[in-house]
C-alpha cells in the first residue's frame, strides 16, 4: 500500500496539525480523539463545531478499526488533521483493508430498522461534516469542515 493518502489538493495551503499512525485498538482511537479535541480547542472553534468534528472523527476511526482492520491490533490506522489559511479543516482516515461499498451520496440513508445496534457511523459522518469523500475503494475517508 502506498504511504501517502490519496488527497492531493495542489491549489490549497493545507498544513498538518496531526499526522499519526496508530494500532487498530479502541484505546488508541480514544487517544487520537482526545488529541484532536485538544487541537480543536486550541484553534478556538465553537464548541458545537468541535463536538461535530470530534464525533465524525470517532466514527471514522471506529470504522477503520472494526471494518478496515478487523480489530487486529497488529494493523495500523492512519489519521491526519489539516487546516488551511481559510480555516477549513480536513481529516483523513486510512486503513489497510480492502475498502467497502459506501454507495452514492444521495442514497446515504439510515436503515429503517431503528433498533439495529450498528450501521449508523457513515450516515452520522455525512450529517456532521460539510463534505465527505471516499478514496482507495473506501479504505480512505476524507472529511471537510468549513
Amino acid at each position: 500500500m502506498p504511504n501517502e493518502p490519496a488527497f492531493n489538493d495542489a491549489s490549497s495551503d493545507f498544513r498538518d496539525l496531526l499526522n499519526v499512525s496508530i494500532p487498530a485498538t479502541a484505546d488508541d482511537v480514544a487517544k487520537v480523539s482526545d488529541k484532536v479535541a485538544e487541537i480543536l480547542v486550541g484553534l478556538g472553534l465553537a464548541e458545537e463545531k468541535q463536538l461535530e468534528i470530534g464525533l465524525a472523527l470517532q466514527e471514522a476511526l471506529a470504522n477503520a478499526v472494526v471494518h478496515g482492520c478487523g480489530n487486529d491490533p497488529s494493523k495500523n490506522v492512519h489519521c491526519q488533521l489539516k487546516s488551511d489559511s481559510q480555516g477549513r479543516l480536513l481529516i483523513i482516515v486510512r486503513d489497510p483493508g480492502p475498502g467497502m461499498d459506501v454507495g452514492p451520496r444521495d442514497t446515504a440513508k439510515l436503515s429503517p430498522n431503528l433498533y439495529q445496534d450498528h450501521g449508523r457511523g457513515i450516515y452520522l459522518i455525512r450529517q456532521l461534516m460539510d463534505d465527505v469523500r471516499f478514496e482507495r475503494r473506501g479504505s480512505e475517508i476524507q472529511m471537510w469542515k468549513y
Partner: protein
Amino acid sequence: MDINIRKRSEVHVIQLRGQLRMGQAVDGLREAMEETVRSGGLYLVINMAEVPMIDSSGIGLLVKFLASTKGRGGNIKLLNPSKFAIQTLKLVGVLNLFEIFDDESKAVDSFG
C-alpha cells in the same frame, strides 16, 4: 468512563461520566447493564448529564438494551442528555424511542 449504579425502589439509576464511545466506555456500560438485567432490573434511568458525546456504538448499545428490556415489560429512560447528545440521537432517528427527563425523581416515578 465512570459508572455509578443506585437503586431507587425498583428503578436502577445508572449515572455516567465521560464520553460514551467505542471501547472501555461502551464495554463498561454494557457490563453494567447486563449485570443489572441479570439481577432482575427491568426499569433503568440513564443519567447522561455528564456525557458530552455519544457515538454510534453507544447509541447502538442503548437501543439494543431498550429493545430487550421493553420486550420483557421494562424500559430505559434518559435523564438530562446534553444538547449535543440529543442532536446526535435525533440525527440517527432514535431520539423518539426514548423518554427524556430533566429531573431524576420524575424519571423514577414515571415507571409507575
